[in-house]
């Protein structure tokens, strides 16, 4: 099989581990043949497939390879190729958030490099503040987020702007970040009314709005979003964060269903190298087990993957042990992120998540 037939076969698959495996196979074939142009094409596809399979560590490596190759072969590949790679470049900026081992200074340098490159392509008025906003949201930098948001809102979209659906969801993220839960919910409703969609939306949208709706006490709407969103993200390793949000909702409304959902998704969450999505899941799991403890349940039976940390062959787990595992892991990760980011933001997320349990619950129908 040639590189191109392997790539074609991969492109005919849904996003996920198998597609990524086939693209990696295409990269190997291209490297074996010593065909630099084919190796570049295959790695560009790898950037894409890894990004949509929740394995952005592979995406970063492939991007670094492509960036170096394109810099060496600029004349031969042409100006269009710069645009094509620039479209993928923005995923690099977001991916750096996942890995606390990348220092903040490096991230800031990556932003500067991105800015220079896309300015050279005649773009960036909107995208540069957009990605600054994303970084500020990740760091918990309130002033930075406000400034970037305001600049972004007055900037013009261009050919390298993120897709309208993703931008619309970022507005919802910003509202939630600033404490405007009603604004967040309204923005999500606007997105859904307009049928905005892309490969991540509305899959993640239904999950992202759940905490805001729970805090607002709008349980009926939360239930609707849970029902509409859960099938879209169930079992998909690219949607661990959304799975965590649904886990939080279920922990508060249906602990038995929450345990099933947890058992089904905890394997991917523990295995992902994207540590901030892993943190999201730890927080939700901590909420689940603290709720079970509060309800007086000391032990429970779960069918968990055998390679899970703390796996017990008899399937019987102490609620307290599970809670401490997830809360402890969440704290450790939060510290790593805060140390990298230079702001004490993630450390408070555990309390904030656990506080969801103190809100008034929905009245049974």
């Amino acid at each position, binding site marked *: 099989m040639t590189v191109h037939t392997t790539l074609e076969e991969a492109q*005919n*698959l*849904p996003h*996920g*581990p*198998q597609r990524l*495996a086939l693209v*990696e*196979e295409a*990269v*190997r074939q291209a*490297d*074996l043949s010593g065909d630099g142009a084919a190796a570049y094409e295959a790695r560009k596809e790898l950037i894409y497939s890894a990004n949509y399979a929740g394995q952005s*560590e*592979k995406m*970063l*490596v*492939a991007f*670094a*390879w492509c*960036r*170096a*190759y394109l810099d060496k072969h600029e004349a031969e590949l042409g100006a269009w190729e710069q645009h094509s790679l620039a479209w993928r470049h923005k995923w690099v900026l977001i991916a*750096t958030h996942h*890995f606390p*081992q*990348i*220092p903040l200074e*490096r991230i800031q*340098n*990556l932003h500067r*490099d991105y800015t220079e490159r896309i300015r050279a392509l005649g773009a960036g008025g909107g995208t540069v503040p957009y990605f600054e906003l994303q970084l500020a949201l990740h760091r918990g930098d309130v002033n930075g987020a406000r400034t970037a948001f305001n600049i972004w809102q007055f900037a013009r979209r261009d050919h390298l702007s993120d897709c309208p659906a993703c931008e619309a969801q970022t507005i919802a993220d910003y509202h939630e970040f600033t404490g405007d839960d009603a604004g967040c919910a309204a923005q999500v409703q606007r997105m859904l009314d307009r049928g905005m969609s892309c490969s991540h939306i509305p899959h993640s949208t239904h999950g992202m709005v759940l905490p805001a709706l729970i805090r607002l006490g709008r349980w009926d709407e939360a239930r*609707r979003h849970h*029902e*509409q969103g859960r*099938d879209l993200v*169930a*079992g998909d390793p690219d949607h661990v964060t959304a799975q965590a949000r649904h886990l939080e909702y279920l922990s508060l409304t249906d602990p038995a269903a929450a345990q099933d959902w947890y*058992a*089904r998704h905890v*394997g991917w969450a523990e295995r992902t190298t994207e540590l901030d999505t892993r943190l999201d899941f730890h927080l939700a799991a901590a909420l689940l087990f603290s709720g079970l403890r509060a309800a007086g349940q000391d032990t429970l039976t779960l*069918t*968990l*993957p*055998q*390679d899970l940390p703390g796996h017990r*062959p*008899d*399937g019987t787990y102490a609620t307290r042990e599970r809670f401490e595992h997830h809360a402890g892991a969440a704290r450790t990760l939060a510290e790593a992120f805060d140390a990298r980011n230079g702001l004490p933001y993630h450390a408070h997320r555990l309390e904030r998540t656990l506080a969801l349990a103190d809100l008034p619950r929905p009245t049974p129908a």
Partner: protein
Amino acid sequence: MTRSFAVDLRGLIDLLSEHLYAGPEVYVRELMQNGVDAIRARTDLGDTFSPALTFDVQEGRLTFTDNGVGLSPDDIHTFLATIGRSSKRGSVEFIGQFGIGLLACFLVSEEIELVSRSARGTPPVRWVGRADGSYTLLTGEDAALPAGPVGTQITLRARPDRAAFLLPDRVASWAAEYGALLPYPVTLVGPAGSVSLNATGAPWLDHSRGEEARRAATLAYGEALLNAPPLDFVDVNTHAGAVRGVAFILPWTPSLDARGHHRVYVRHMLLSEQEEQLTPRWAFFVKTVLDAGTLRPNAARDALRDDADLHAAREEIAGTLRDWLLELAREQPGRLRELITLHYLSIKALAAEDDDFLTLFLPWLPFESSAGRQTLPELLGRSGGELRFVADLNLYRQAAQLAAPGGPPVIHAVYTYDHTLLERYGALNPQVRVTRLSAADLVQDLAPPTPAERRATATLLAAAQDTLAPLDAGVRLSHFEPAALCAMAFPGAQRDLHRTRQTVGPSGGLWADLLDDLKDVGDTYAMDVHFNLNHPLVQRAAHLPDGPLLRRVLGMLYVQALLLGHHPLTARELELLNGGLLDLIGVALGDPDASRPAPHLN
């Protein structure tokens, strides 16, 4: 002072046609939908009548007639006053929908003439609306109409630029498509006479000639739909959404592009040929034809509205398909096997979502392994209760090389769902050990040398480490089978990162720094090579003194291991291969230079 907007109806229609509707032909659908709703409303009144819809198409003029409930003068006033607003009558949003549907006729005609008599016994009405927004309305005696039958007649005259949309054969084909499942006659009267457009209806609902005839007619419908005889069909009948229909079992494995294209009707009228939401996403082994009695379409009428009823209906349909598979497993295992051959991906997808289904079906499903395509019981039988799988293609190649014939097989779990299924199977069956193999696990299976061997091979090991470390390869000496393999090379977890780091270069700036950040501290080499102490060549090499010849041999064996493992060679490895080959040929030919250390080795 309060004023009203002067709405430009023409502009509004053009906007609608451009942004809401697929094309001007939707006017046929909207006319029929109005007729269907009117017939339903009349049935709800308890009237006894024989419902029928008729298109009469003659020379650019189309008259559509239904014998539904008809419009009273009040209805006309309501709908004119509230165009675009939904108003409810009984269970059907009738007048509002009627008005919206009627507007679509302006897509093809500058003028709409409507003549109607209500089943409620009110006087007849005649309304003529024009695309500029003006209209005339005559009711009762003013209308000077004969007291015709109950129902509505709508007449359109083709706009010059839209004449093609009123050609009899085209109207016939659209009406046949939209109304194929209507349970009463749809007729077209044209220059060539009168033709029935929906002779067959929904064959799966026709029990009048017995079950055998119903099955045969339904399968014939399926054959026409798929262009091939379906393997079977499953009846669908849900409480939520009142969905009636069939799921045809595809006689082939569908490609990704062809999945999820289901034919869906709402209240007997075609909504979409590509509806995706009503059928569970794992059901790519079927193509469904469904008629949703009480589900609602979206505004453009091209998909169902995403609401709680839709979700409940989909759950029921999922349950129906699942039960059918379970029954097949119980009653007709031979046919299930046939189905699995074509559709195991679909069944694996369902099993990944549903533990009960997984428990029941996993024994039937095939997995790729180093012992060929096997089912789980076969694999378990050969492996003494442990399932070992690899989820990485590169690693699988090495694992398969090591898996001895007759020994415990290694499962190739790179495919969609396999990994999830095995993990879930292990969670549900703790007595079966399910192990995801890493390179480190494979390496552990290789037997290390004894202390005596270690002493005897110290020179060999040191020379090998010294030679290969600059190539980013770690070295070990082991015993393993098959003995015919001199050496095996295992990719480290971060091989691509290591290799890319080399490509980017020692002073690669930002990107080199980023890769260094990501590098795992414990992961020292891109590759790990094991020289096989069972192999006679390696044993002989252990007797050589450290020198250019031994280093050449080790370098060449390493490159050979890379080639056997189908690993791409870096420029330096290729250089090593070329240089080593030339040197060895030189030695063989007695070249006096060949005994000097070659520049490509250290």
